[in-house]
């Protein structure tokens, strides 16, 4: 109880509340501009959070991302362009509603069900994370090794469309992670004589490159025609929302649960959650024929799912240090920078910090209602800001931000190379999320593998001897073998 009071005290301070408010506005703005993603918003925030205390730093990220995922719905409805990839699943549906003169329903459902889904995600986080942390206290290097492997497996086989390219993405991430001195024999690996590379490739400039610079390059390379905002006045966005909640309670619950679950799986985040929820909604709808004609049901379910995914993604991030999505991959970097190393001991040694994160999460959801309403009101003005003026300014921010972490020009080069890599990967059809997972988890994988191997005295079977480790290991192997089994079965059926 005392810790809870301390946690409230940590959050409800004028400075923290101001940070929450400002990052909320920032998140709403970034999310509403097509081409700027929630992950990019996080990457750009990091250099600023670098100069803050741990709690406001995490609060800024949590609030900005929650807002950005909602406000991505605004240009979906008004421009037929998703503000962030998480809104892409139901962009057509929302725009068709607007064209039919129901913009307020599209926007209102986006807002209200984002908030409800978000609250559900936070509740799951608050309940699941401490329980899991208690179990995780018993974990040894064997369990951690398999957890990391399971993370890669999810990112490749469950979240990705093309497992082969997903594996390449993970390997590229691991290759980036092996640079430096931090390895079993402390040998300088791939440092090419540069002292800057001895400590490994800096994570934050890498993330800024992969998620911001690559987006700027993509914007520059692909012609985007400026769209005209639908010039239709629309009514109160809250009208009829209660009726929708009563009409689709099951959709709301299903979307939120699916969102939280997909969010918690490493490598899959809000965008995949929204696509899956939209598909599920259509599959189980009483009126599936209405989907794709401006029907609100899919927006209810997928809109709740993408915001629920945000909370879900923090579960493995806080408990195991394994990011649930790209946003938490960056957030984990921030947690390490701030000395709040994620892991079950964080729950034991600094529970007030964990509670403070939960409180901020909940606060962000409640703030979303009034601020989201205001954002919808000024949406037309926001959407008139030309992106080609914003992009060079964001570029400058990236340069200065990457430099600011270590005051090192070398980090700007890292940022640039990572940006070009991210841009090329996207164009050649390689998913970026598994690479980030590889970078973040590379040293953890190697460290746990070697300590397990030394404990087991070189006996590989020991990796399966402990009950939880064995289960996780077998689960990994089954998922790896599944495509082979399926192919065999297909061939068998054909013959």
């Amino acid at each position: 109880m005392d810790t809870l009071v301390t946690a409230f005290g940590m959050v409800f301070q004028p400075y923290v509340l101001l940070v929450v408010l400002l990052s909320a506005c920032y998140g709403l703005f970034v999310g509403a501009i097509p081409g700027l993603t929630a992950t990019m918003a996080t990457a750009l925030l990091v250099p600023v959070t670098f100069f803050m205390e741990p709690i406001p730093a995490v609060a800024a990220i949590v609030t900005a991302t929650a807002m950005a995922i909602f406000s991505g719905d605004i240009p979906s409805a008004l421009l037929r362009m998703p503000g962030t990839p998480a809104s892409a699943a139901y962009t057509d549906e929302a725009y068709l509603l607007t064209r039919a003169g129901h913009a307020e329903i599209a926007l209102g459902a986006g807002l209200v069900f984002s908030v409800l889904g978000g609250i559900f995600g936070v509740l799951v986080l608050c309940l699941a994370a401490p329980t899991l942390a208690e179990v995780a206290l018993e974990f040894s290097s064997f369990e951690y090794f398999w957890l990391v492997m399971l993370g890669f497996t999810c990112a490749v086989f469950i979240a990705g469309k093309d497992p082969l390219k997903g594996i390449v993405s993970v390997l590229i991430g691991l290759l980036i992670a092996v640079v430096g001195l931090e390895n079993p024999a402390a040998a300088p690996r791939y440092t090419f004589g540069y002292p800057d590379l001895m400590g490994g490739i800096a994570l934050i400039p890498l993330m800024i490159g992969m998620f911001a610079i690559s987006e700027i390059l993509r914007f520059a390379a692909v012609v985007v025609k400026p769209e005209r905002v639908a010039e239709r006045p629309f009514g109160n966005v809250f009208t009829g929302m209660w009726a929708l909640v009563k009409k689709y309670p099951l959709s709301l619950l299903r979307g939120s649960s699916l969102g939280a679950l997909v969010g918690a799986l490493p490598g899959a985040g809000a965008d995949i959650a929204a696509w899956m929820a939209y598909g599920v909604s259509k599959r189980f709808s009483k009126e599936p024929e209405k989907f794709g004609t401006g029907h609100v049901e899919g927006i209810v379910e997928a809109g709740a799912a993408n915001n629920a995914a945000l909370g879900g993604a923090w579960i493995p991030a806080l408990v195991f240090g394994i990011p649930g999505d790209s946003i938490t991959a960056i957030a984990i970097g921030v947690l390490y920078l701030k000395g709040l190393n994620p892991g079950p001991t964080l729950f034991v040694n600094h529970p007030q910090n964990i509670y403070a994160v939960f409180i901020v999460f909940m606060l962000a959801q409640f703030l979303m209602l009034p601020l989201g309403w205001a954002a919808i009101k000024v949406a037309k003005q926001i959407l008139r800001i030309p992106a080609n003026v914003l992009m060079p300014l964001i570029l400058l921010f990236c340069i200065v931000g990457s430099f600011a972490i270590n005051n090192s020009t070398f980090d700007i080069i890292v940022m640039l190379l990572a940006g070009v890599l991210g841009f090329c990967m996207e164009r050649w059809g390689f998913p970026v999320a598994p690479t980030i997972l590889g970078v973040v988890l590379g040293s953890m994988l190697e460290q746990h593998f070697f300590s397990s191997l030394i404990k087991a005295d070189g006996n590989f079977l020991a990796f399966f001897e402990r009950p939880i480790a064995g289960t996780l290991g077998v689960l990994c192997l089954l998922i790896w073998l599944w495509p082979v089994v399926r192919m065999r079965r297909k061939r068998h059926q054909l013959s």
Partner: protein
Amino acid sequence: MQRSDRWVGLGLAVLGLAVLWTARAFPTVPGQKLGSAFLPMIIGAGLLVCALALIARSFRGGAYVAGGDAEAAREHFGSAVVIVGAVLAYVLLADRIGFLFIVPLCLLATFLALRVRFAAALIWAVGGTLLVHAAFYKLLRVPLPWGPLPPLY
């Protein structure tokens, strides 16, 4: 299946071989059979196998599906090159001629590459530079390079 798979696969195969080749030299942990070379070996071998599979698949796959925005991207590839060039120019010149001189030039080039009108580009370039300098140098105390200028504030 993308047209690029074959060439990307070839590049990845070369990368995989290079990783395997260089990893041989990494030492083992004293008293253990494995060491710093183990993970790079796995990565190199994995890249090589995946690259070969990618190449094989590109030959087997038959019909190509052009990668989403590949066609549109070719037209404006120049703008992306200007952006990369602007960052490189900053890296190479910032210490020598100072933040306040190099940044407006880099910004102006990128604005123009993104087809912002000249007058607007000039205003944004100068204004953006001063704003970011004030925010990061003054407020966050990031030592942005002055170059030949004496520190003005």
